[in-house]
């Protein structure tokens, strides 16, 4: 659960815009790569995996309101390009239900998409290192590491979003204005949308580290089950 449940209008506009540009560029690359393969066959597959991801996201794990992403499972089973497209579809659907802002879909796709892509490559590396003896360990380790990396990416985004030129401009404007107390308080509320990153990181890392382990264990068990029951479903490159 490393995607941002940030409402619209909290993050600076430049970071929202930049994330959309990056997401569109990566998506264009993914679509070009997928077009070379049998695209028609991939459409139902992407759709179903996206739907499974959304369905699992709707199952909150009590008591700490964590929900599974299954992004690494998608990465391992679909490969990086298709998984990135699936993540974008998932983000659009959950934004339609008001589960996070519609303008942060770009940013969420980068964070969760990175999780899927990194998860796929880490799984490949782990499989090569562990000599394909333990598919469960490989997928579990890949999941925990990719979740750690994607959370770091998320915190990085939040850190750089602290520098808001507009906030500085408005703060300067406030110094010279002669407003009443009430207006002043409202005005302060208006432009203090910055997030205390260290405080947020502490809260998020404590809660999410439990989630990483949980998701790692579940991913490991899921991949082990699928490799036992339907090994053909895993990518031929991942499991022979």
């Amino acid at each position: 659960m490393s995607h941002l449940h940030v409402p619209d209008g909290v993050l600076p506009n430049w970071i929202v815009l930049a994330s959309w540009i990056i997401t569109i560029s990566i998506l264009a690359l993914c679509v070009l790569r997928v077009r070379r393969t049998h695209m028609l066959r991939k459409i139902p597959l992407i759709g179903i995996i996206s739907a499974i991801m959304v369905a699992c996201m709707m199952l909150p794990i009590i008591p700490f309101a964590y929900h599974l992403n299954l992004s690494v499972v998608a990465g391992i089973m679909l490969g990086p390009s298709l998984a990135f497209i699936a993540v974008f579809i998932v983000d659009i659907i959950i934004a339609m239900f008001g589960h996070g802002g519609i303008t942060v879909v770009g940013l969420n796709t980068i964070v969760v998409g990175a999780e899927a892509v990194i998860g796929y490559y880490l799984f490949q590396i782990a499989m090569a290192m562990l000599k394909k003896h333990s598919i469960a360990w490989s997928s579990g380790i890949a999941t925990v590491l990719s979740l750690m990396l994607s959370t770091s990416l998320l915190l990085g985004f939040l850190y750089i979003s602290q520098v808001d030129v507009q906030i500085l401009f408005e703060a300067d404007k406030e110094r010279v204005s002669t407003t009443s107390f009430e207006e002043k308080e409202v005005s302060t509320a208006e432009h203090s949308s910055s997030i205390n990153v260290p405080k947020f990181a502490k809260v998020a890392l404590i809660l999410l580290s439990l989630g990483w382990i949980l998701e790692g264990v579940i991913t490991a068990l899921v991949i082990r089950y699928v490799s036992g029951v339907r090994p053909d479903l895993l990518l031929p490159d991942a499991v022979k």
Partner: protein
Amino acid sequence: MDVTLIDYYANHGTSFLHRAGAYSKILFVTLLVASVIITREFYMLLGIYVTLLILALWTRLPLLKIIAISIYPTVFTLLFVIASWDGSWLKAGVVMLKALSAALTMVILISTTPYPDVFNVIRPLLPGIIAEGLFVAYRSLFILLKLTDDLVKGLSIRGGLKKRRYANNIKNFSSGISLLLVRGFDMSEKLYGVMNLRGYKGEARMVKQDIKASGGDLILISIGVSILAASLGIRIESGLATYSTHLLALCTTILATSAIYLIQSEL
């Protein structure tokens, strides 16, 4: 979050919002989200939220259910409020209202518009594979949610999910998800076969949207444009912020009047 219920509302409602075109509703959502982004003034945001409550009331759908669905994401927004807490309740209120307003806007859209209509509007903006994937994902979601629900019920009845037996619960829950994945893949294969047989060439044909504007469309767009204009006005000229309380009072009066009217008409 009950997606099936939202879909039922979208397809069975008869309000003016249900009758309005998908194009105008998406334009309304765009205007409202832009207003939420622009506005940093507490009372203005509260005014926007009350306006949305009025619209939700006029959909004649269960208001509390609609609000409950839109409140869900604010649980996560609380984390951001805690992280940016500096003792100002007003600032916390601004962040929460931004989340609530944007979420309620989206929930009003999807609970009054069938999903093929929404996808039909956004389809030209997306590459083929994404547009088709989105359609298949949403279509399959209901089947998979039913499967997930049955799975959780089945696990609970058979003692697969018991209190304080965490390791066992995780193992059984993972088996359930694995089963869901395997069934999902089988479903995708079947779906591909069916689509292929029906001559699918990479684009599902949809019924074309009628973009003739009705009264409902005009009301919606007028509300959206007025809110955006007010938000822009306050953002450009901060002195206008004092009028946001008047706007809030007006919206609250309309909400109360609407509620009384609708209660009386149903009695």
